[in-house]
């Protein structure tokens, strides 16, 4: 027993060391970002050798970030865009993943293979054609124009399909015996079981929308429809004569906070291991 305790303590310690090292590597750029956001613009520019600390921290950059550009409005736009896109996406991918995972139909493998192959198309490629489409539909500077092309993500259909497939067949057969329709089965059984994954997907999509840059930049030029990423670029380019990096960092910190909060709130749901045992006994 003694040996076991020692070796398990040692391995635990090693695990902690390993986790801490990587945590530091992850944290350092953030530390740098927050540090920079607290540095005075002038003193930031005069630092020949980057300093790890600042002698007179200031909140001026945060004030600048909100006044130089209407960051509040951009945040609102981003929220609208994100919520709508994520919501729409759920409506689209849950049935689709179900179809691939559970329903037998002709051409299933082929269609799935086609979907997968679409996943390999880089956005840079489709962006010009989508721009032409949106212009032709007169949707520049509208929420719809921002949302529609961003709704579907095949990555998540694929992930969800894998998760759906992992649910044992017996559950399905049992439900069928009870006379449950496919839709009810999907909504009442499968979705709750895969809740960790669904929440994960939702969060990943939210973050994707939150940081989306190239597409909004292309189709909106009316400031009322700008997203936060446009805002950051604006600060970067128009900051008081040159790149106002500290203000930009301040904006980035502000923008990241809602996402961190979101993650913290939903973390339990993601981590909650829902027992898949429904067919025990």
């Amino acid at each position, binding site marked *: 027993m003694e040996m076991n305790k020692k070796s398990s303590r040692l391995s635990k310690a090693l695990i902690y060391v390993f986790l801490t090292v990587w945590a530091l590597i992850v944290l350092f750029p953030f530390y740098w970002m927050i540090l920079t956001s607290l540095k005075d613009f*002038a*003193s930031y*520019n*005069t630092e*020949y050798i980057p300093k790890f600390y600042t002698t007179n921290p200031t909140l001026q950059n945060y004030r600048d970030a909100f006044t130089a550009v209407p960051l509040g409005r951009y945040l609102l736009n981003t929220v609208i865009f994100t919520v709508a896109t994520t919501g729409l996406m759920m409506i689209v991918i849950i049935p689709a993943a179900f179809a691939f995972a559970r329903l037998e139909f*002709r*051409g299933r493998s*082929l269609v799935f293979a086609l979907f997968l192959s679409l996943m390999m198309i880089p956005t840079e490629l489709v962006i*010009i054609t989508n*721009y*032409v489409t949106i*212009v*032709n539909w007169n949707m520049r500077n509208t929420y719809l124009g921002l949302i529609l092309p961003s709704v579907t993500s095949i990555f998540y259909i694929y992930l969800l399909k894998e998760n759906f497939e992992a649910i044992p067949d017996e559950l399905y057969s049992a439900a069928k015996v009870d006379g449950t329709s496919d839709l009810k089965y999907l909504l009442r059984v499968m979705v709750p079981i895969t809740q960790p994954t669904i929440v994960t997907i939702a969060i990943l999509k939210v973050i994707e929308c939150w940081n989306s840059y190239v597409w909004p930049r*292309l189709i909106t*030029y009316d400031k009322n429809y700008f997203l936060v990423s446009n805002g950051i670029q604006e600060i970067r*380019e*128009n*900051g*008081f*004569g*040159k790149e106002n990096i500290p203000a930009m960092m301040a904006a980035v910190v502000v923008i990241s906070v809602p996402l961190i909060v979101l993650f913290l709130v939903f973390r339990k749901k993601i981590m909650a291991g829902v027992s898949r045992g429904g067919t025990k006994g």
Partner: protein
Amino acid sequence: MSRRKILSLALALTLTLPLLSACHGSRTRQGFTIPDTFDGSKTINLVFWAKNDTNKNQTAVYRQAIDDFQKIYPNVTIDMRLYADYGRIYQDVITNISTDTTPNICITYPDHIATYLTGDNVVTPLDGLIHDEKFGLGGTEVRFDAPKPEEMVPEFMEECKIGETTYAIPFMRSTEALYINQDFVEKLGYKVPDILTWDFIWEVSEKAMEKNEDGTFKLNGQNVLIPFIYKSTDNMMISMLKQLNAPYSSEDGEVLIFTDTTRALLEEIYTHAKSRAFSTFAVSSYPGNFLNAGQCVFALDSTAGATWMGSKAPMMDIHKEQVVDFTTVVRPIPQFNPDHPQMISQGPSVCIFQKTDAQEVLASWLFVQYLVSNDIQLGYAETEGYLPVTLKASESAEYRDYVSRKGEDNSEHYNIKIDASELLRAHTADTFTTPVFNGSASLRSAAGQMVENVTKSARRKEAISDEYFTKLFNDVTSLYRLDQIGKAGEEAADTSMKELPGETKALLIAIPAIWIVIGAVQLVQLKKNRKKKEN
């Protein structure tokens, strides 16, 4: 799904491709004829894309221009969109040509217009408009005081011609200038001449590299000193070649830049980059920052950068504590032949895009005219070391007064700024531009790229040789596709099979090979399955 179905689907797709390609044909656009009257009752919305130098004063001038113009022509509203650099404007215009959503008025460079012109009737030709009796420059029906054609600076108007047709109106003009720390030059034992030569500037820069025992520089007692920094390497190469009358490009788009002269110039630059006496903006940083901190002797930038130069510069990126006090003098760029100085002419021009509604185009033209009226010219020119493009403005009493009050303060009448614009005014006849054709922008970037590469190689202590230059010329040619622009591009494309490089050959063999293997494995699987079923 059966294989036959897949195959037939694929076949159908490949056959329809050529049909679909018809969708990419050009939209026909109409030419422009000047209407008889300007319809003041029709509501017109114009879109104006401007470059924003991150100078709030300049943005204010644009806004004032729009407000005033909208008062004079109440049926017109103008939406302005600001861009941080010309490259983005160019990209967006190109994207919007295909959707017919180009702006009405756009600040641009003739190089870019040459590319827009490859489509039919994209940009409106302006000769007819300029000389029209009613609506031309200073015409009878123009509701504000606008310059007449002869009141425009002729050199600047010439620059906006592509071939024989005028496609743009100059908006502001600048040139490049040397901003010199006079104290440093004298400390080194030299006097700043009226016109510097390249030999002079190299000599002084090298002398400035002397160091103390502790590693600091003798000249400024600091750890950092880069005596000569050139901001725009494009202009550097172009100007040097022009001064030597060496080939760069021809009017009809021949690329002539890869000569021994170019090589000799690059070798000279290499020597000084190696000793760190010379550097560029891309490698080091903005010259003004170094100059103001006493870490540079010769800072070379556009006259439109004058407000950033000098101890008392109104615009600065560095902290006050780092600024060193010194006397700044402004001179033309270094010359090979001081008796016949030549310097580049640059600065934004304005063009208008063709639209179906002739009234819209006319309104755009009127706004362009407004941009060259005195108030706007003076307002904008005074924000930086620009020169107004109209004699009407630069010879006006107001402008003369502005110039005479040089040094009164360190903002509107900042002496370096006024020195810079006066330099251009004095040397207007010595300015030149490079030939404009589709792809001239690429050639210009290529010229600059060579200087950058040589500088970087010098810093990395790479050796230069014949092979180096052959590789450099080849790299730059492919990087900017110089063998396809201008004249070379218009000649029938060389369809002789160029040798495909090894890597792509490998790729072309590997992929089909892999699929053959996959196909074979599948076949084997199928056979196995059939056997299983049979058993």
